């Protein structure tokens, strides 16, 4: 017999009290070979920054966590995951699994961040292939000086693709 799940509730506006430091924004150190800085902005349906969101990244190498600042910005330093190291799905391109928590979100949002330099792998990825090009573009980070940019749009014309948790 399966036990019924405990329902989710919002992380609320004051999560920094409890979630600030235990897991940090550096999955790997800044100087580590292959370290990549991934930064982005979380935006709401009015295009306004979300200053009280929490972003978590998951990959076989470890988890990262960063709260957004007053302008909705976050940054996590990690490395590109080894292909297929996590889920064994041979066809999946390298990606980070991403959770988004915020006041106003009763249940976490789950998305994926793919790497812009993995054209062939991304083209073969079954999750990306199932999406329209507009949807797909919300999941592929953009190269910028100093690293990658991955903005998260909670609503609107550029709403990020989110997955059933």
């Amino acid at each position, binding site marked *: *017999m*399966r*036990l*019924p*799940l*405990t*329902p*989710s*509730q*919002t*992380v*609320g*506006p*004051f*999560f*920094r*009290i*409890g*979630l600030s430091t*235990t*897991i940090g924004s550096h999955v790997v150190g800044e100087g580590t070979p292959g370290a990549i800085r991934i930064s982005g902005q979380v935006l*709401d*349906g*009015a295009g*306004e920054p979300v200053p009280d969101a929490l972003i*978590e990244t*998951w990959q*076989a*190498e*470890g*988890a990262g966590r960063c709260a957004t600042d007053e302008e909705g910005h976050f940054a996590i330093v990690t490395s590109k995951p080894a292909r297929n190291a*996590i*889920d*064994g*799905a041979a066809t*999946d391109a390298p990606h980070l*699994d991403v*959770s988004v*928590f*915020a*006041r*106003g*979100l*009763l*249940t*976490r*949002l*789950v998305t994926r961040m793919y790497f812009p330099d993995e054209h062939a792998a991304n083209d073969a990825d079954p*999750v990306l292939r*199932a*999406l329209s090009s507009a949807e797909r573009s919300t999941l592929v980070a953009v190269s910028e000086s100093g690293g990658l940019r991955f903005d998260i749009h*909670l*609503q609107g014309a550029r*709403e*990020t*693709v*989110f*997955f*059933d*948790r």
Partner: protein
Amino acid sequence: MGDSSRSAHPPNDSPAYGSSRLRAPQQPLHVLAGRLSELTAPLLAGETIGPLDHDLTRQHDGEPLGERITVSGRVLDEEGNPVAGALVEVWQANAAGRYAHRSDQHPAPLDPNFSGAGRCLTDAEGGYRFITIKPGAYPWRNHPNAWRPAHVHFSVFSPAFAQRLVTQMYFPGDPLFAQDPIFNSVPDESARQRLVARWSLELTQPEWSLGYAWDIVVAGREATPLDDDASE
């Protein structure tokens, strides 16, 4: 999609909760077809947890004001297996209903002896235990004369991505449940009741503190493919 335990989670599109209106995604969720369940990441936090981090009443020179309580239970997966080594983090308002956070403008007193944060790792049986004080209710601006029922925020972070859970634990018999859109965002009454701790005589220490029992059930670690591979 037909899995009733998954529907335990509240929909993000819950207009009675005002903050959701510009933040809840408007497009349907895409199906990953079981791909999430197996994802695991190492949890490196163990070495940073102090022996008293679970005791919110001993973080300052003096004791916090309020009703001293123990909150304890187990973290289990859907199959009833204990989730050992999970990082459980809690945060809460003080006894007057005020968070030690600069953005909390409720004109209730701060308590210099209460920060309101704790953490621990679950033991081999999935057990956790916190010692704290009962948080107070507090007003918010969701609707006229809105008040949040007393609650403790819980975060459960196990190495399995699918098990990640952030939720809130409530106290039995709270008269504020009926008007709270966050508690009532959970559509199913029996699921809502799973957010409410049980007063426990066993956890109540004579002439010292009241005890509350609350178990947390997270998703199973084994891949549980959705009904079939149908999209949407």
